[in-house]
């Protein structure tokens, strides 16, 4: 899947050619897709609680049922209003959106 040399790794072209890199503003933009997996690690720690809540709502809207949300090792969504829509997957701060 990839080649690694020195301190770098490069994905195989077959895979990397299918990747889209785009800028999205968590503060102001709205959901633009439903994903199976969202990784957002160590970003939310820089947001205050109201903004964290907004971002978690955005992620909730952007995940398909049974999709996964991965946060940083010391972040959590336990205190958020979206928590009811997720179950803890394991202790690695991975949550799975419920199928309902």
């Amino acid at each position, binding site marked *: 899947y990839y080649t690694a040399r020195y301190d770098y790794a490069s994905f195989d072209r077959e895979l990397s050619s299918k990747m889209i890199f785009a800028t999205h503003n968590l503060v102001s933009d709205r959901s633009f897709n439903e994903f199976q997996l969202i990784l957002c690690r*160590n970003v939310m720690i820089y947001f*205050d*609680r109201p903004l*964290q809540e907004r971002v978690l709502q955005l992620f909730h809207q952007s995940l398909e049922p049974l999709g996964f949300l991965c946060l940083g090792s*010391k972040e959590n969504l336990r205190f958020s209003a979206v928590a009811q829509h997720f179950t803890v997957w394991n202790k690695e701060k991975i949550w799975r959106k419920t199928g309902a």
Partner: protein
Amino acid sequence: MAQDGRVKLVVIGGSAGSLEVLLQVLPFLRPGLAYALVIVVHRKSAESMLAELLAGRTRLPVKEAEDKEPLLSGTVYLAPADYHTLLESNGSLSLDCSEKVNWSRPSIDVTFETAADVYGETLVGLLLSGANHDGVVGLGRIAANGGQVWVQDPATAQVAYMPQGALNELQADRVLRPEEMADALNAL
């Protein structure tokens, strides 16, 4: 800042040799302390069972700090590995993942300085054994903002460099041997 003058927060920092001190002091802390305790020790990686180890030695609740967690009195919070732990003006802790400070993350200075800015005179800072300078500047900020500065007696420290460094730069309110620390903390 200090309406009634009582201590609201104690921050403890240490590096090499500080774990032994904590294990010696924790069992003697009385439950129901009127302040929260935040402990920052230099730690290697996220796999460590440090919180569990400390929790087993005390009746006080011990937990790793989580982002935006509100501080509760009588509770011990441990700075997690690979994050800086900061004190916020609304009485909560926040985490930060930026570059190391004094080659450390968590950095004692970061915790001490933010605590000093928020808690001023209601703060006590204690610096323990260690092999680097992290925490000395932070202790100075605690002093400058009217908090109390406590330092482990370098003669009792496994690595005297850190506490001695603090004493070289500032006037400590107390210089404590580990066996004196629990009484001092219980008396606050």
